């Protein structure tokens, strides 16, 4: 492979890289994907929920035909559980609307999916080399013009697209980022649990290939910022938990003990009863979002997906952002090739495309969420227990009148130190002014809308 020259080199055969490769192959651009795993997916971990819309835009109707994607179950129900040490409050949504095609989303086994997606790309003309670790970028007069592998091979190209995931060596090598800070990433551990198909369907009340998802907050993260998840696959369950690396550092809680304790939680235990662990895995999730994004382009260089912190953790979306970003990066390369200009100015239209897509608006709108939660640690430590105790009293019949019970609940909730702190921190001058401003703005908007009618 020494000293070959391509139009484009894509590093990483995850959702971002393969999506880019497909778009370039369809446009007849001479591109190559370099993947360090023995096969595509070998290094990759996902919960994993795959959203239909973004993949459909790359591989239309990928769920059917002669070579459909290896999908596990289509999701018709999504649940959120707030766990205290011995109880759970459920909020959920199940709908027949999600039964029809195209389904909103599917559970997937990430390795199976990645292998299929890479094969699909190859069948459309993409070239993918596996077992190749890229160590650094090659630069000439400040312009990036190729990559160097761990075996010392050099490959040249007009443009390099970094789709190398959260541990992006390329964005570092390009000088776009230093190391992520422990506050900018979460560490997740997961187990794949085997269980007969019929048992899964019975246990989770699923009709045929329907699937369900649980995101779990509260006690299971021991006061760290993060959450657990449980997803149904065809013949396995995906169970995992992820928290900020900085919080693991601070608390000294080990990730595998956290997962093991979660499995022992009295509410979760029956859901995973009789399962066999067929795989343990661990991976980072970039959660710095908009505030942590590196510059997305340079001379001869583009960054897409996890490598650029494109994850929306509050909606567990990442792979879909990676696919769309990979596609937009490739479209930018096609334009650049037509113009014969791979300078950072020519490639800057990538950023514009991202802004016009859902990616930048979503990342921007969620940019301060984690920080806000972190500034109110009570939300993670005391609140699950308080809410759970209130629910217990509300549903428990103990001979007191309802009036008595309700006033006792309210009194206890509002006297709790954590709730008082929370209210105090919300009742700042700035927040009150903000509320007031919002109300005035809203009133004006309402008035002008009414006039328009």
């Amino acid at each position, binding site marked *: 492979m020494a000293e070959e020259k391509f139009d484009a080199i894509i590093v990483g055969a995850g959702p971002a890289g393969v999506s880019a490769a497909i778009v370039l192959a369809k446009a007849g651009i001479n591109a190559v994907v370099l993947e360090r795993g023995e096969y595509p*997916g070998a290094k990759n971990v996902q919960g994993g929920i795959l959203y239909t819309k973004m993949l459909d835009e790359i591989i239309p109707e990928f769920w059917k035909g002669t070579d459909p994607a290896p999908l596990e179950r289509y999701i018709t129900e999504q649940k959120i559980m707030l766990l205290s040490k011995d109880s759970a409050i459920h909020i959920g949504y199940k709908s027949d609307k999600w039964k029809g095609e195209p389904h909103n989303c599917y559970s997937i086994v990430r390795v199976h999916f990645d292998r299929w997606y890479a094969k699909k790309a190859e069948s459309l003309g993409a070239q993918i080399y596996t077992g190749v670790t890229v160590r650094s970028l090659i630069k000439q007069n400040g312009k990036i013009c190729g990559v160097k592998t761990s075996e010392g091979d050099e490959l040249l190209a007009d443009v390099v697209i970094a789709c190398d995931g959260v541990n992006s060596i390329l964005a570092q090598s390009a000088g776009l980022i230093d190391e992520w800070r422990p506050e900018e990433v979460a560490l997740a551990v997961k187990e*794949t649990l085997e269980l007969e198909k019929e048992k899964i369907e019975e246990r989770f009340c699923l009709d045929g290939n329907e699937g369900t998802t649980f995101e779990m907050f509260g006690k299971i993260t021991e006061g760290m910022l993060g959450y657990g998840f449980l997803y149904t696959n065809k013949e396995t369950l995906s169970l995992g938990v992820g928290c900020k690396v900085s919080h693991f550092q601070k608390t000294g809680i080990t*990730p*595998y003990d956290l997962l093991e304790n979660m499995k022992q939680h009295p509410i979760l235990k029956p859901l995973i009863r009789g399962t066999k662990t067929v795989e343990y*895995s661990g991976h980072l999730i970039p959660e710095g979002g908009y505030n942590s994004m590196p510059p997305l382009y340079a001379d001869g260089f583009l960054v897409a997906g996890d490598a650029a912190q494109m994850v929306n953790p509050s909606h567990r979306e990442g792979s879909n952002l990676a696919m769309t970003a990979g596609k937009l990066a490739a479209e930018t390369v096609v334009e650049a090739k037509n113009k014969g200009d791979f300078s950072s100015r020519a490639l800057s239209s990538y950023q514009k495309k991202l802004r016009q897509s859902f990616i930048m608006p979503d990342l921007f709108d969620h940019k301060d969420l984690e920080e806000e939660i972190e500034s109110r640690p009570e939300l993670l430590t005391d609140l699950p227990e308080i809410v759970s105790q209130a629910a217990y009293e509300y549903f428990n019949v103990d001979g007191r009148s309802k009036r008595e019970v309700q006033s006792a609940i309210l009194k206890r909730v509002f006297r709790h130190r954590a709730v008082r702190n929370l209210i105090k921190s919300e009742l700042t001058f700035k927040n009150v002014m903000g509320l007031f401003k919002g109300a005035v703005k809203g009133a004006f908007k309402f008035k002008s809308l009414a006039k328009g009618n």
Partner: protein
Amino acid sequence: MASVEEKLGTLNFKNDHQSHIAIPDPKICLTQCKDKPCTKVCPAKVYDWVESQKKIVIGYENCIECGAARMICPFNNIKWEPPRGGFGVSYKYG
């Protein structure tokens, strides 16, 4: 309760003869680092403080390549890079 060793037993590794992880200055671990967060945060228990040797022993063969090692050492004393092409962990499910 399944131990981390049992969990790691579910995985396939193809090990390189050379480590992809290094601790450039073991003295820092001994003299400056009280909490030794690497021994706790790593999900594969790759970093183990061995009292008799007074140093961190690196079990790079168990590394599941999450990459957390790149940011968990407060003294920036862990040098972690992805294993050479084709080596390391290979997930079956992921």
